[in-house]
């Protein structure tokens, strides 16, 4: 059975406009030509190193990029063009975003109130259920963000996606700081949602974690998806992977022996090599 496409991102590019010392407009490209498809019932993990623009992708989909951002490309949601206006109507209801740090909570508002948000009384019961689910005492609802530990804050953020009836969740690094039990619980939740026919985008730098829950893994490097592969491909010696960067990443995992390829000429590890669409090579000129 061919699964229905939930979200499709085609040739997305994001640049930031600024002025240089000569007061000329310059555009810094953070993401260029990124394509990604999320089917119903699927968890797509976006894996990449810190600073590779993963969060920007989430922000672009949610239409919360800063004013000086310039975007290109198109997005489709449930087969229809996803315009910024349409996104503004969908977000918070059909599409939920789970941000990555406590800085995304209003420092002067009690967290229970924030989880409920503007969704009304119906959401309050759901908020209590969510807190129970994630092992937060109900009294936590009366706390302010600065009183939360990292793990508690993360659970509060996870709770925010619980109070809406979502079709799709975009989670930006939802697990660091959580203890293992809760982390697994959160990931199980995503699996459950996906099995109900919803879509999940899981943004993480932890390829190991992605391998455990995701159906597909998009390897992200420097604002581009170098390869999207089914999770099964990351098996054995990783020979099913097309791009050398994905293979190098896979080989560098602890269970695969921390193997880092070295440049035969200068001996630099592949972690420092240049990567493009076709492959990766050492800066010393040797391929």
């Amino acid at each position: 059975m061919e699964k229905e496409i939930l979200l499709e991102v085609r040739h997305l590019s994001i640049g930031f406009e600024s002025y240089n010392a000569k007061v000329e407009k310059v555009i810094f490209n953070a993401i260029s030509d990124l394509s990604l498809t999320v089917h119903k019932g699927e968890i797509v993990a976006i894996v990449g190193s810190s600073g590779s623009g993963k969060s920007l992708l989430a922000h672009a989909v949610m239409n919360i990029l800063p004013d000086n951002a310039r975007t290109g490309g198109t997005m489709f949601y449930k087969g229809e063009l996803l315009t910024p206006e349409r996104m503004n109507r969908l977000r918070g209801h059909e599409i939920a975003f789970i941000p990555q740090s406590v800085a995304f909570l209003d420092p002067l508002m009690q967290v229970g109130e924030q989880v409920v948000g503007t969704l009304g009384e119906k959401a309050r019961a759901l908020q209590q259920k969510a807190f129970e689910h994630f092992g937060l005492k109900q009294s936590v609802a009366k706390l302010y963000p600065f009183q939360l530990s990292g793990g508690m804050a993360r659970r509060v953020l996870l709770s925010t996606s619980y109070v809406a009836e979502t079709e799709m969740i975009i989670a930006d690094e939802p697990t660091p700081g959580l203890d293992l039990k809760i982390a697994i619980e959160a990931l199980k939740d995503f699996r459950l949602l996906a099995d109900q026919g919803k879509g999940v985008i899981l943004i993480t730098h932890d390829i190991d974690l992605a391998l455990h829950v995701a159906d597909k893994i998009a390897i992200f490097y420097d604002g581009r998806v170098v390869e999207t592969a089914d999770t099964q491909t990351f098996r054995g010696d990783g020979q099913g992977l097309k791009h050398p960067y994905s293979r190098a990443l896979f080989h560098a995992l602890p269970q695969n022996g921390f193997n880092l390829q070295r440049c035969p000429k200068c001996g630099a590890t592949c972690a420092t090599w240049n990567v493009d669409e076709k492959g990766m090579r050492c800066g010393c000129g040797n391929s």
Partner: protein
Amino acid sequence: MNKGLLRYFGKTVARMLLLLVAVSMISFFLVNNAPMNAVDAFLGEAKVTDEQRALIEERWGLNKPPLERYLIWGNNVLHGDMGESLYYHQPVSKVLKEKFLSSIVLMGTAWILSGLIGFVLGVLSGVYRGTWIDRIIKTFSLVLASTPVFWIGLLMLVVFAVELQWFPLGLAAPIGKSVNDVTLSERIHHLVLPALTLSITGIANIILHTRQKLIDVMESDYVLFAKARGENLKQLVTRHGLRNIALPAITLQFAYFSELFGGSVLAENVFSYPGLGSSAVLAGLHADAPLLLGIALFSALFVFVGNLTANIIYGIIDPQIREGGGING
């Protein structure tokens, strides 16, 4: 918590005393070294012999060394006696009280006006950043910020008192009326121009600070997240914007006490409004050292109380201080 609070108040009182001692010493030194001579100012045109002069100096204690005079004065102040004003021929404390009561109406009105107008315009400008509303408000604030108070005062007089004759030229009540006959509406009528002038000095500052703070808040991660959860502009501003700019606005409003005092000296002089500000100038011109020192001490206390109030309000309404383990100085 209680122990912390006690320590906080102990520290505050100690700091206040230190401040007052420092202010009194510096003011005393300045007055003492000013080219003004109290005896000259007292005598005016009257001619006296050197012996008579020496007699006055001795009676006033001016022949004693400055340090001794300071200690005598300080000791008296500690006992509640701030001396007698040379200009008003009344106890300094009585003059201070009278003038302050008249000034506080002026300063209070200006304080509330500038706070309200500044906050509202600042929020508008921040919410509609980059639009024509923002540009008008910003231009207005920049013009105000670069205009001296006394000049605005004169302009107000020319336009509203001389040309349009809507408001009186000066003073706090009509000339030739006894204090008991002055009505409230007459008082307000006399208050409008000086209060407006005085408030204008603070408005620009408050608008620009409020605007910038609101812009920072609206660009914060938590507002982004609220937006991603479907809140519209109105909800963003009322639920997160105002909440997060309230504290800085309060700090600003109370820190403005010192500017208010400085501004009142100019505004009261332009409008011949009989308050503390104009008394300060009179005391200076007439080498009225006791009154001058009294005003210096009083204004230091006034500004200190303003800042202290801001701190206390912070402790009450900021959850990060309220629930984060006591107030820290």
